[in-house]
């Protein structure tokens, strides 16, 4: 956890409205765990004022510009342009200065080795699942159910395939893969039975649907949530979600930035519809 003044290495549109940014990030290959995020300072301006949170898509090394130097460590984030901050981010170029705070939050638990692992991603919600998949394929069979509104929202799926992940794509408009919601395939899979763990990230309605299905089939579920964040370090208390057993008389609020963003579904309150406006993860825009 540190504030890193660093530079952009590359920043490219990978699908309409989706960008992948590579950022020079010493120590991140060692420090960053699957499911963690960074707080990204768009520019040294007071507008936008607050940093923006982004999941770490992956970390890696690239050759240095000169052979005698050690390779450069980087992280990649993938972001969707949804508002003022991301509009500015899309204009960043190789060499531009940025600041990142991280890696932040708690990542995924990897479950029991050997059992099947089922990932469910909705649109940009796919981002934190890649590093998870990298880790899980070492000891388990991994399957990915990936959904989006249109083909534009289906990103980086081939990269999961290259890891050896079995992928199932569906879109609401049928422009690629099955037509319909991502949960259809998931439910079929769970009907088949067997020991497994499910991991989900995406728009809140998708996550709620996934939670219902997993609960029905008694399958453990980890979810990665979004929340409006000011600080990312547990200080502002802006990013809370309701914990299990929350009620008006015995309220329980958990910081998404500290306790999360990954939660064991059992630790959360699914009774009421989620209060927190959860940004624009995935196709929910």
């Amino acid at each position, binding site marked *: 956890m*540190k*504030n890193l003044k660093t530079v952009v290495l590359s920043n490219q549109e990978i699908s309409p409205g989706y960008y992948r940014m590579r950022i020079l990030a010493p120590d991140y290959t060692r420090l960053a765990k699957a499911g963690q995020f960074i707080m990204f300072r768009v520019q040294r301006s007071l507008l936008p*004022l*607050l940093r923006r949170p982004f999941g770490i898509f992956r970390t890696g090394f690239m050759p240095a510009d000169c052979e005698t130097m050690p390779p450069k460590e980087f992280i990649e984030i993938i972001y969707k342009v949804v508002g003022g901050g991301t509009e500015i981010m899309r204009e960043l170029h190789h060499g531009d200065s940025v600041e990142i705070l991280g890696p932040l939050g708690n990542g995924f638990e990897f479950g029991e080795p050997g059992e099947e692992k089922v990932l469910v991603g909705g649109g940009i919600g796919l981002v934190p699942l890649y590093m998870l998949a990298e880790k899980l394929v070492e000891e388990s069979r991994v399957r990915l159910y990936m959904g989006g509104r249109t083909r534009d929202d289906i990103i980086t799926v081939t990269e999961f395939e290259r890891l050896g992940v079995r992928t199932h794509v569906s879109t609401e408009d049928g422009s690629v893969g099955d037509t319909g919601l991502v949960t259809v395939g998931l439910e079929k899979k769970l009907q088949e039975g067997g020991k497994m763990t499910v991991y989900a990230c995406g728009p809140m309605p998708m996550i709620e649907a996934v939670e219902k299905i997993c609960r029905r089939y008694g399958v453990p579920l980890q979810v990665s949530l979004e929340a409006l964040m*000011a*600080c990312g*370090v547990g200080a502002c208390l*802006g990013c809370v*979600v309701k914990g299990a057993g929350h009620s008006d008389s015995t309220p329980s609020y958990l910081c998404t930035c500290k306790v999360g963003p990954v939660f064991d579904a059992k630790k959360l309150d699914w009774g009421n519809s989620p209060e927190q*406006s959860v940004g624009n993860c995935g196709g929910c825009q």
Partner: protein
Amino acid sequence: MIKRKDKIIRPKMEVEIAGIKLRNPIMPASGTFGYGEEFAPYLDLNSLGAIVTKGLSLNAKAGNRTPRICETVSGMLNAIGLQNVGVDVFIKHKMPFLEQFDTPVIVNFFGNTQDEYAEVAARLDGVPGVAALEMNISCPNVKHGGIVFGTDPKAIHEVVSQVRKKTSKPLIVKLTPNVTDIQVTARAAEEAGADALSLINTLTGMAVDVKTRKPRLANTIGGLSGPAIRPVAVRLVHQVVQAVSVPVIGMGGITRAVDALEFLIVGAKAVQVGTANFVDPTAMSTILDELEEFCLTEGIEDINDIIGSLVV
């Protein structure tokens, strides 16, 4: 003048507020620095003038529904609802961490009733390591018969007097900016026994999502903070300094040393940094470096020479 050719003399940064010696005039604002531990990875807590903790109530408080925050133009709105662990848990579980440091701890607190205010103050009174209490009478979320405590001079006088009886620690009263005449409320707090005043708390504000037509905060209304409000804060500190004789701690939208200097120049003895800690958890250390740099360039040997040096 400091001879820059000779060895560089570091400017004196110590200030004193209500008998507490601070190594410099920079400290966090309550509610933006957690209980200190959240920032320890980013900042040397021993470099700060003081540590100011999140507002405490008698019992733990869950806070408001979400969304609780929302960004505005060069500022932010919050309606956290004063979520906190409660005074006893704080004393037991949070103070031990803070006592490791050689930095005065100022504990911010509030109550829903006068008695609660007094009770929290009483419980903090005996606690070693607590250098001073900062009494939040100004949070727009704390209602008392529909009206904010800190907007009524009579209510201020009563509640501050009652708290005053319960504590021998230096008592800082934190004022709300949402009043017609801050000099009146400032004097009420001073007369009731405040050893120092701090201001400003957030300006009451609101924002609307034009697509859903809902307020952006679940609480509809919240507190505006950040650089956007600084001119209002500087004006209010200027007015309060002229109205009272106790020391004043200024805040509101400070992100850089030049911002802090505006408050010191109009007469604040120290400043608090709030929202800027969210933008950059190392903000206060940058501000300290810049402040020293400013003193060196301008030939200022003692920061106290800046305080109240406004030329009108």
